[in-house]
Structures are given as structure tokens and as C-alpha cells.
């Protein structure tokens, strides 16, 4: 691999960095080595059986001559007014996660919800969506969801359960509810809060106890506020006003309440448009963190510290910033703790502190949910000192109905269970048997409970140990409500009748405690009617209710901002609090627990889309691993299995080659418990720390979830839920594990696919993206076929002149070996219309992706999967390089892998480029991929015979082949989920990104009927609609006012592999980073 002209190197894995010969060999393969093999010896017999059967069926198939099978039409008996058959409807609702809701718009085809988009009117979404929202539609139709009420595993009727549990409750009522314990997840729902109030405080069960537990909850944030302000408060941020941002372990661009809004605001301050942006107003992001997160990857400066050191960093920062009393919390512990920051960290800290104080009132310091409450309190003090409160940071009343410390709550509940105080336990949502801290032994003590009732989406680990289990309604089947990150309330309305007669928590509570049955609608509506009457609003209630449902937000419910300052004595409180934290251990290795980036706390483990989605940073699918830094791995003598060669019988270091990484297995010993885990070496991870992701290793999660990965909850203690020292790691000799990892798939070789420079460099060299990297051939093409701005540069100008002299000289390198291709192209391009001819009636579609704002969050990948009926293939097939995602996100590292603080990441979404001179089109023997009049590279499934020549000839490696029958034609519920506007592909067919052609054609038809042109707002591709950073711009290149035309006029616009002269319609804006010159200089000097 060669070094880019400016001495920058971008690499995807350590092998690439070290440039192993095996890596070179792999580059030249179209698909990974085994992609076209079927080498599963176990299924050989089954393969022969299937072959026999399919041969026989092939004969039968010949008998059915009719091109389409006979069908019935089942019209409505009474057609609802709103429904026009064939036209989707959109309904506003909201998705709850950890209690906090985000507004969504759900596309519904004749009553079947099929696609989720963000709600443009909702403050947390503004129209964007994240990967969990996108994937929740698959959760709704999951055939593994719990389908009936059970008693000790036996199916029972709802009424039977009702009479039984009601009888028990009426007994409890006599004791005013003593012995009744209720466990829920975090609750923000105003209706549910009122129901609790009615039941527990004012009602029949005053002595009953209500607990809340979220394994990946935000207790630290709330407790931190309480430490500082002596009352609970919610904190949210305004990134649109922040010039300088310091994130202390907060992955705010990927997770947490409000992340979509934050990403949107952050990206708006980061985007560079040469005519509009003042370069000095571009924001700057510093991140201190342990593992490499998306936020850390795209940061301008990143400092890798172990999670436990970050609080020290903050202490030092507070001192540096002259926060009053900042010394006090530290003093008592100076002897106990290891206060030493490295030289590098110190220098870093000083520069950051200077930058922050220079931007007082226009900067922002934020702390991650996993950092202790003390750090949050400290950050409140820092922000107050920096005058950020009320500007970039806002405090409101807590959005939770009853803010609590989740870890204390679950502990108290278990204590009550141990003392046999619990007569009846209602577990309403959640899965504590799986995700409660292991030291509490929740499952064991559950046996002491007299009667247990579980409400849940799945027959999961908790359902198995509870006596009664009741299927829960999915949020798309529910009437409910909830609050967004800023307190705005939304009504959750159902899109479909419960598929498996699930109930909401509201309905269950009402049914158990109220004699008359109330539907979810009645309960929620009544609650809001009471509120409405109470707050005496104008107009009628029906109007209010309708508009709340239609808009997806209840107007005026956002919480008022409060001006809070740390109360006197906060520093002393911090000092006291720290005593309660676990003491230091001499063993320096640290363990960190994080919710999985795609499965969250494990609740989405049965979602195939999320399992198969490559984790944004590691690119591992269908697994989790113990993540360590290269140095630590070296020290511990672990890594990619030494014996990989023998194991696989193939050469290669296997760091992701062939879609599989054969890695060592380690045994983690922590507080007397051990766990076996495969290792993953992650450049950028802090040294001397191990990070494990929660949410895997389910035993009763469903057919998709079971047995995938290891269960990190098995090590998690209640005292230190997020990180702790004192871990021992031992390599298990001769044990290996194969991870499915896509990081080396679809590699485009060293052709400078990613281009990035600092803002300062950009100022002087705005066209830097067109400068050629070493080994890159000058772009020889002169006549551009696509209208609109072209990626240009000095090569362009030179050749323009040459072309004037010799008009026949168009291409220096033949595109194909077929000599007729040039002529054919010319003729075709004449037909299509040269750009200097008068504009044709056709649209010319194109896309631009801004790599400056892309955070690699992967929402677009799932959005594409949902929109285009893309199948899931499973771990085995991913390991053969057969994953089907039309849109992949390439992640490149930059920097020095053995210095974790000098590793940054760049993300590049890559899908079909819709080349004007598409290499794939030339080689298709059956014309199954051809150009459309508006510039799309059409893929016609019914013509495809599966030669795979096209994918062989695609330099971007964006074509996907159905090696097997991946689409599930047999599961009934999944048929309901599919987008009816897109063909479900079967085996033997090539597929790829179509620019969401179904949306283009629908918009085209609609506007042609109205006799107008398609405007930008009429048409969004699925990836574009989802993108929270608005990094993807799509539109009509023949319209000079379109957003995409303007975006492509940017000087940073460059085409991927432009030297191949494919003339792609998708181009990229090179990534700009805004490093602090002071820190830059320091790093340069060092290196």
C-alpha cells in the first residue's frame, strides 16, 4: 500500500496498515474466497435432497405457463374514507426507548405499517431517524414474539389470568397493598404516571412498592444533577450555539435521548458551504473516551483515557478553568487514587481549557451516561463557570415521571425478595432475569416470590421464571404516550390491531385493578381530557386531540428551561459521594460495559436487521467481542489466532478477510466470575482496558437472538455497572472463535477513496479533493455526460485544452477491451443529450454525500434495508461475504494505531454510484442492467440470469448477489412488512441500490398529473430521509436550483475512483476537520 501524497494514510484494519501479502491477494477478489462455494459438510446431504427436489420442481415450473399466478381480489366491505387503494397513508406516533420517546411517521399500506420515518414536527427527530427506529418495524412483525398468555409455560386464556390475578390483588387490597411489588422500565408516560398515582398514592394500594430498572439507564445523569442542584433535573444541549464542544465519554452522535436532534444541530455547525459558511464559525469537537465511538471517530481531537481516568481529567480541567471549589472533591482521595495524567493528556487538557475559556458562553462540556454522577455534577459546575447555562445547555424538570437511581432500585427490590416480603411481583416490561446485575442473583431470588406476573414482548428469560406471562403490545400496536428529551409529550397511536393480542401496560393495569374494562384508547384519551380540562385550553377537546394525533406532538408540553446553579457545598457532596464508589484495585486492567451499538441492552437481540448490521466502528456482525487496544493485546499475548492458517486451511491473518476473523478467546476473571470471550483488537481503544458490549448471549431471546455472542451481564455488578478495575485476562490456549466482520469486504484498493484535510488547509487549497493521490491516474475524460457541476481540478483544465485541439481524443485508457464500446457510448450520449444542448425534459438524478458531517451512525443502512426489502443472510453467509446491504458504510482509520489518542475514523457510505459509463452494463449478456433516460443504472431482476459478470466488473463493489434463497417467502407475518412497491428478489438474482427508484417513479407520476416539476421536497431517498446529519443530498442535476446541484458545486466535491472514468452520479464532499492548531503543532513536533 502506498502512502498518499501528503503523507496521510487511511486504513481499515491492522493488516492493511501493516500491508500483509495476504491482504494484497485478497484485494483482487471480487467476492471473498468462499463466496461462491457451498462448503458446509453437514448440509451436503440436505443439499443433494434440495437439488433433487429443485430439479423435480423445475419440471413442474415449466408446466405453469402463465406469467403471473391466479389471484383473488378482496375488496373492502365498507371502505374507510381516508384509504385510497394503492396509496400509502402516514400516521404520526412515537417510539419509546428507555422510556424516552422520539416522534415517527409510519407509512401504512392498506392498514399494514411498512416503513418508519422521523416526524419532521417532533423536536427530537426533525424528520430524521436512527437505526433502532428503522428496525422497529421488523420487531413488530417478528414471528418469535410471544403470542399467548401462559401460566408456567402452558397456554392459558386472558380471562383465566385476569380472574386469578385479580383475586390475588383483592387479597392484597385488604392489606392496602403490602407485599405488592411492581417493576417497570423507566417511565415518562404522563398517563402511566397518573395511573400509578391513582393506584399507589391515592388508591387501593398505598403500601405497594413501584420500582424502575433500566440496565442501560440514565441514573448517573439524574443523580449527578441531584448532587449539584440538590434536586433532579434533566439536561439537554443546544449544539447550534456551541462553537467548541468537549465530550467526556458521551457518544452523543449515536445514542441517548435527543441524539438525532443533537446530530442535526451539530452537523449544521460543521457543514462547510463555501459561499455561506464563515470558516471561523465551524465548530470544534474534543472527545475524551475509552473505546473508539462514532463521536470520537469524527472528533477533531480525541484523547483515549480509560473510563475511570476521565473523572480525573474533568477534575483537572475544572481546576484549570478556575471552577470554584474544584479542588475540594479531589483532596481527600489524592492518596488513594492515581491522579497522574500522562504528559500527552496534560498538554491536551491545557489546550482544551484555553479553547473553552476563550469561547465561554459559546462552548459546551457534556458527560456520558456511563460516567459516574460525580462527573456529571462536576460538569454542571464547569458549564456554570463557562457561562454556558441558558445558552448551550438547558435544564428542565426531569422528564421521567419518577426519577430514580435504577441500580439502587433493583437492589432494593432484590433485598425485599430475599426477605420474602414480596407476595406478588408484577414485572411490567423489561427482562430483569437476563439483564439485572449478576451479583444480585435476581433469578435465584425470584423463586421467593409468591406470585409473579410478567408482561413482555417475548417469552424471554424473565417470562420463563415468572408464573404468569402476558404478551405485550408493540408500540406500533399501542395507545400510550411519553415524553421526548426536552419534555415534549407525544401520543403513541397504534398503526395496526395487536397481531398477537398483546396488551399495553395501561390496559393491563386497568384490567387488573378496575372492574370495568377500558381500552388503551379510553385510558389515554381520558387522561388527556382531564389534563385539557384542568389546563382549560381553548377550542374543543376533540380538536385538541385530533391535532395532537395528527402532529405527533402535544403542543406546549415542552418543559420550561430552568436556571439552576450548583448549590453551595456541591464540592463536599462530591467528596462524600466518591467514598461510596468502589475502591481502587492494584490490578490496572479495567473492564468497561457498554450497551451494544445495535442491540442496545439486548431488547433488540431478536431483530435480524440489527444483528446483521455491522457495528458502526468494529464492523462485527452477529457477535460481540472483548475489545482491547493493539498495545494491550500485544502485552497480553493475544490477537488474531496464530493458528488461523491451520484452522482455516487458508492463508491470511484473518483480521476480517473473507468476512471472518479467526481470533483468540480469552477468559475474563472479574470479582470471582469468569467469562469466555473472543478478542477484538481495536485501534483507538485506550490501553489497559477491556470493553464488552451488553445485549448478546441471549438464551430465550428468540430464534435469531439465541446463542449469538456472549452475555456480558454475567460479569456486571451493581456497584460498578459501567466500569471497574481489577480484571484479569488470560488467553485460553488453542481456543479460537470466528467472528463475522465486514470491515475488509468490498475493498476498493488504494485509490484514495477517502479524502480529508483540515479547515486551515482547505482555506488555501479549496480544491484539494481533486489533487491526485500517489498511484492515481489522472482523470482523462473531457466531455462530461452528466449535467451539473463536475468534480474538477487541474487535470480537467489541462485536458479541456487538449480536447479543443483534438476533439477525437476522448479517452486515454480504454474502458473495456471491447473496441466498439467507445462508439456505442458516443452514440448513446448523443441520444441522451450533451450538456450544452438545450435541457431535455428528463430529470437527471444525482447524489452528493458530505463526509464532513457523516457520523457513520448506520441509520441509512437499516432505512435502505427496510425500504427495499433487503433480506438478512445470517452469520455463516456474512462470513462468506454474501451480506446483502445495498448501502454499506466504509470506515477508515487514520493515524497511528499504537497510539490510541492519535486514531481517528472516517465514515463513507457507499452504494451504487449510478455511473454514467457503468462498467457493469457493458458486461451483462442479457441486458439486465441498463441505463434509464434519467440517468439511473436500472437493475431488472426478471431479466437477470445470475452470471455475476456485472459485480465482477464493478470497481465500487456495490452489487449484491442472491447466492441462496435469502428472502423469506414462507413466514406470513414478514409478508405484511414488505414494501409493496419493491420486488422481493429470489435466488440467483443480482441486486443493488436503485436510488429508491420506486420513490422517484411515484413522485414523477404525482407531479406529472399535477403538471409540475419534481422539487427537492417531493422526493427523498430512504437513506437521505433517515440521515440525522443531513449528509446525503439527492435530487435533480438538470435543475440548477436543486440542493444537489448546489452541493456538487462545492470545491470539495470529488468522485470515487474518478480515474476509472466511470463518471459516477454519486459524489462525495471531502471530509473537513477543524483541529486546533496548537494541538496540531504539538502532535507534529512529536511525530
Amino acid at each position, binding site marked *: 500500500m502506498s502512502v498518499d501524497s501528503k503523507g496521510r494514510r487511511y486504513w481499515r484494519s491492522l493488516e492493511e496498515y501493516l500491508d500483509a501479502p495476504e491482504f494484497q491477494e485478497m484485494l483482487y477478489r471480487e467476492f471473498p474466497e468462499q463466496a461462491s462455494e457451498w462448503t458446509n459438510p453437514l448440509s451436503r446431504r440436505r443439499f443433494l435432497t434440495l437439488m433433487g427436489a429443485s430439479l423435480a420442481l423445475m419440471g413442474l415450473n415449466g408446466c405453469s*405457463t*402463465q*406469467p*403471473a*399466478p*391466479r*389471484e*383473488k*381480489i*378482496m*375488496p*373492502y*366491505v*365498507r*371502505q374507510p374514507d381516508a384509504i*385510497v*387503494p*394503492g*396509496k400509502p397513508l402516514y400516521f404520526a406516533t412515537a417510539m419509546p426507548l428507555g422510556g424516552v420517546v422520539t416522534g415517527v411517521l409510519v407509512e401504512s399500506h392498506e392498514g399494514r405499517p411498512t416503513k418508519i420515518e422521523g416526524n419532521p414536527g417532533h423536536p427530537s427527530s426533525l424528520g430524521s431517524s436512527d437505526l433502532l427506529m428503522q428496525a422497529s418495524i421488523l420487531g413488530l412483525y417478528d414471528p418469535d414474539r410471544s403470542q399467548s398468555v401462559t401460566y408456567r409455560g402452558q397456554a392459558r386464556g386472558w380471562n383465566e389470568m385476569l380472574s386469578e390475578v385479580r383475586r390475588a390483588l383483592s387479597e392484597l387490597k385488604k392489606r392496602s397493598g403490602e407485599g405488592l411489588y411492581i417493576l417497570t422500565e423507566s417511565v415518562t408516560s404522563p398517563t402511566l404516571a397518573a395511573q400509578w398515582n391513582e393506584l399507589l398514592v391515592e388508591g387501593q394500594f398505598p403500601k405497594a412498592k413501584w420500582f424502575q430498572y433500566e440496565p442501560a439507564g440514565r441514573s448517573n445523569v439524574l443523580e449527578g444533577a441531584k448532587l449539584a442542584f440538590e434536586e433532579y433535573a434533566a439536561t439537554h444541549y443546544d449544539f447550534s450555539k456551541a462553537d467548541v464542544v468537549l465530550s467526556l465519554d458521551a457518544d452523543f452522535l449515536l445514542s441517548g435521548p435527543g441524539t438525532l436532534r443533537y446530530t442535526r444541530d451539530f452537523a449544521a455547525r460543521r457543514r462547510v458551504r463555501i459561499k455561506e459558511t464563515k470558516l471561523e464559525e465551524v465548530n470544534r469537537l474534543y472527545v475524551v473516551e475509552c473505546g473508539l465511538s462514532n463521536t470520537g471517530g469524527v472528533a477533531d481531537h480525541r484523547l483515549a483515557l480509560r473510563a475511570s481516568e476521565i473523572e480525573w481529567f474533568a477534575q483537572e480541567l475544572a481546576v484549570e478553568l478556575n471552577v470554584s471549589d474544584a479542588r475540594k472533591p479531589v483532596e481527600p482521595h489524592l492518596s488513594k487514587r492515581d491522579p497522574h495524567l500522562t504528559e500527552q493528556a496534560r498538554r491536551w487538557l491545557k489546550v482544551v481549557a484555553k479553547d473553552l475559556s476563550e469561547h465561554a458562553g459559546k462552548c459546551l462540556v457534556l458527560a456520558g451516561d456511563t460516567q459516574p454522577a460525580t462527573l456529571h455534577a462536576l460538569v454542571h459546575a464547569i458549564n456554570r463557570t463557562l457561562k454556558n447555562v441558558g445558552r448551550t445547555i438547558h435544564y428542565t424538570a426531569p422528564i421521567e415521571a419518577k426519577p430514580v437511581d435504577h441500580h439502587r432500585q433493583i437492589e432494593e427490590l432484590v433485598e425485599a425478595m430475599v426477605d420474602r416480603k414480596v407476595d406478588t411481583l408484577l414485572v411490567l416490561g423489561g427482562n430483569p432475569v437476563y439483564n439485572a446485575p449478576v451479583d444480585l442473583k435476581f433469578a435465584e431470588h425470584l423463586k421467593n416470590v409468591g406470585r409473579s406476573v410478567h408482561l413482555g414482548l417475548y417469552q424471554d428469560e424473565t417470562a420463563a421464571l415468572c408464573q404468569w406471562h402476558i404478551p405485550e403490545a408493540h408500540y406500533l400496536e399501542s395507545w400510550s404516550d411519553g415524553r421526548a428529551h426536552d419534555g415534549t409529550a407525544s401520543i403513541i397511536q397504534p398503526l395496526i390491531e395487536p397481531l398477537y393480542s398483546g396488551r399495553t401496560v395501561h390496559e393491563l393495569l386497568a384490567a387488573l385493578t378496575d372492574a370495568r374494562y377500558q381500552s388503551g384508547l379510553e385510558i389515554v384519551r381520558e387522561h388527556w381530557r382531564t389534563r385539557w380540562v384542568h389546563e382549560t385550553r381553548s377550542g374543543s377537546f376533540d380538536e385538541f386531540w385530533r391535532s395532537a394525533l395528527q402532529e405527533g406532538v402535544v403542543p406546549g408540553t415542552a418543559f420550561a428551561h430552568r436556571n439552576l446553579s450548583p448549590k453551595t457545598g456541591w464540592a463536599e457532596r462530591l467528596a462524600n459521594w466518591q467514598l461510596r464508589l468502589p475502591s481502587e484495585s492494584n490490578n490496572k486492567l479495567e473492564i468497561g460495559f457498554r450497551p451494544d451499538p445495535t442491540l442496545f441492552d439486548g431488547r433488540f437481540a431478536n431483530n435480524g436487521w440489527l444483528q446483521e448490521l455491522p457495528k458502526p466502528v468494529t464492523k462485527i456482525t452477529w457477535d460481540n467481542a472483548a475489545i482491547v487496544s493493539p498495545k494491550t493485546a500485544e502485552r497480553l499475548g493475544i490477537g488474531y489466532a496464530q493458528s488461523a492458517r491451520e484452522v482455516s486451511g487458508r492463508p491470511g491473518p484473518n483480521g476480517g478477510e473473507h468476512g471472518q476473523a479467526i481470533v483468540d478467546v480469552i477468559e475474563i476473571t472479574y470479582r470471582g466470575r469468569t467469562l469466555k470471550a473472543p478478542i477484538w483488537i481495536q485501534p483507538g481503544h485506550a490501553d489497559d482496558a477491556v470493553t464488552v458490549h451488553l445485549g448478546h448471549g441471549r438464551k430465550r431471546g428468540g430464534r435469531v437472538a439465541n446463542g449469538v455472542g456472549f452475555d456480558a451481564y454475567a460479569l456486571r455488578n451493581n456497584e460498578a455497572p459501567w466500569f471497574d478495575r481489577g480484571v484479569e485476562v488470560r488467553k485460553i490456549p488453542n481456543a479460537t472463535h470466528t467472528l463475522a466482520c465486514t470491515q475488509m469486504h468490498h475493498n476498493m484498493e488504494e485509490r484514495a477513496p477517502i479524502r480529508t484535510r483540515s479547515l486551515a488547509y482547505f482555506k488555501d487549497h479549496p480544491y484539494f479533493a481533486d489533487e491526485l493521490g500517489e498511484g492515481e491516474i489522472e482523470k482523462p475524460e473531457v466531455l462530461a455526460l452528466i449535467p451539473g457541476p463536475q468534480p474538477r481540478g487541474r487535470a480537467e483544465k489541462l485536458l479541456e485544452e487538449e480536447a479543443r485541439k483534438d476533439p477525437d481524443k476522448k479517452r486515454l485508457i480504454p474502458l473495456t477491451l471491447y473496441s466498439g464500446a467507445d462508439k456505442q457510448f458516443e452514440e448513446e450520449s448523443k*441520444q441522451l443529450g450533451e450538456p450544452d444542448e438545450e435541457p431535455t*425534459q*428528463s430529470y437527471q438524478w444525482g447524489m452528493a454525500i458530505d463526509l464532513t458531517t457523516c457520523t457513520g451512525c448506520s441509520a441509512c443502512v437499516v432505512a435502505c434495508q427496510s425500504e427495499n426489502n433487503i433480506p438478512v443472510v445470517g452469520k455463516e453467509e456474512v462470513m462468506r461475504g454474501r451480506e446483502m446491504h445495498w448501502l454499506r458504510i466504509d470506515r477508515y482509520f487514520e493515524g497511528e494505531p499504537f497510539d490510541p489518542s492519535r486514531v481517528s475514523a472516517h465514515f463513507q457510505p457507499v452504494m451504487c454510484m449510478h455511473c454514467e459509463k457503468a462498467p457493469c452494463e457493458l458486461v451483462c449478456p442479457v441486458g439486465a442492467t*441498463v*441505463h*434509464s*433516460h*434519467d440517468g*439511473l443504472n*436500472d437493475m*431488472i*431482476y*426478471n431479466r437477470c440470469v445470475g452470471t455475476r459478470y456485472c459485480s465482477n466488473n464493478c470497481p465500487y463493489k456495490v452489487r449484491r448477489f442472491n447466492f441462496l434463497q435469502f428472502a423469506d417467502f414462507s413466514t406470513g407475518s414478514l409478508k405484511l412488512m414488505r414494501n409493496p*412497491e*419493491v*420486488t*422481493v428478489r429470489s435466488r440467483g438474482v443480482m441486486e443493488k441500490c*436503485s436510488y429508491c*427508484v*420506486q420513490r*422517484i*417513479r411515484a413522485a414523477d*407520476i404525482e407531479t*406529472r*398529473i399535477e*403538471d409540475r416539476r419534481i422539487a427537492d421536497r417531493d422526493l427523498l431517498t430512504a437513506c437521505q430521509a433517515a440521515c440525522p446529519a443531513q449528509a446525503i443530498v439527492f435530487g435533480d442535476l438538470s435543475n440548477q436550483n436543486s440542493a444537489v446541484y448546489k452541493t456538487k458545486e462545492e470545491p470539495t466535491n470529488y468522485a470515487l475512483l474518478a480515474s476509472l472514468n466511470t463518471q459516477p452520479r454519486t459524489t462525495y464532499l471531502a471530509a473537513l476537520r477543524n483541529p486546533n492548531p496548537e494541538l496540531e503543532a504539538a502532535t507534529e513536533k512529536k511525530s
Partner: protein
Amino acid sequence: MPQIFHRSFNTISKVTIFGAVFMVAGLCWFAAVFYRSSYVTESHLAFVQPVPFSHAHHVGQLGIDCRYCHTSVETSSFAGIPPTKTCMNCHQQIWTGSDMLEPVRESFRTGKSIPWERVHNLPGFVYFDHSIHVAKGVGCASCHGRIDEMPLTYQENTLLMEWCLECHRNPENHLRPKSKIFDMAWQPDDRESLGQQLMRENKIRTPHEMTSCSTCHR
């Protein structure tokens, strides 16, 4: 040693060798004809429907407009099959005791759909849109034939791709004024000049644009 083959085999072999050409040609011809036959395309085949609904009666004799039942033909890809309620609008008052209409009344009583046999059946990878065709001046009768003369509805045309393309390549031969879209019997006076005029008025795209694969396949 006696001859294995009889003398007549000379003739037979010659005929076979030369005949093979005709055999292959014949097979090809047969395949082409068979592929377009109503056996394969199911054109001109009437199906047994739950109710023997007659367009000839309702449209031809009573003169009910297409859009009274097929409500979404101008706005949606799917023209719409009338809900039972639409039938009952009239049949609550006329022919209320007819045995033939019992399935309609039953559907209205029980709330269960009437399971009509689909007559115009496109393969799953074809996306046809009624609204744009109607908006651009393609009449109902152009594709569906004289529905007003069909006692039981059948498919008038082959619905093969070549049939679609015939019009997408030469749209001028099939356009009609917007006022005549739902007119079953309309015939143009001067097809050629009217076609050219409507091409301009209705902003019909070029054949090149209308024959892009993704116009219908996605």
C-alpha cells in the same frame, strides 16, 4: 454380412436431416404462437365469479360511469374494486330478493369480502399505474376493450410486455382527448393529426424515456 439399414433409410435420413431445419423452425413458430395464445396469456377467458357481474348491463345498458365503482383510477396505481357498500347503494333497493346477489348481501351482513377472481393479472415485478395513463389520455377501452359489451369481464389484450411496449413506443396511436377517456365507443376522426396534437398537449414523453426499464420494473 447383411446390411443393417434397409435401403429406405437413405430417404428417411435425407428427409430427417433436411426436415430438421423445418422442424426447428416449426418448433420456434409454435413456441411463438403458443406464448401469445390465450392459453398462456389468459386473454378472452372469462372466469367464474362469486357473482356473475355484467359490465354489459351496468355500463352498456344503465350507463354507469367507470369511476362510480373504480374510484381511485385517476389518483392511484390501483383503479380500485368497489367495496360491497357500493353494490348495496343500489341493491338495497332494487333486485333485493335476487338469488344471484345473495353473496353481496351476505358480504354486507357478515363483513367478509367478496372473493373476486382477478382478471387482469400482472407478474409481481411489473408496476402498472392507472392514474398516469388516465391523466395522459389513455382511455379505458384502449387496454380493457369494450367492457360495456362484456357480460362477464375478460382480459381483452395479452398483457405481454411487447403489447405494453407497442404503445409506449408509439403513444400517438392510442391517445384520446381527456373528455373521452371513459367513453367506450369513441373513435377518432383523424387519428394521425389528433395523435400529434395530443402528444404535445398532454406532454407525452419520448419513447426513449417511456421505455426505460425502471418505468415499469423496480
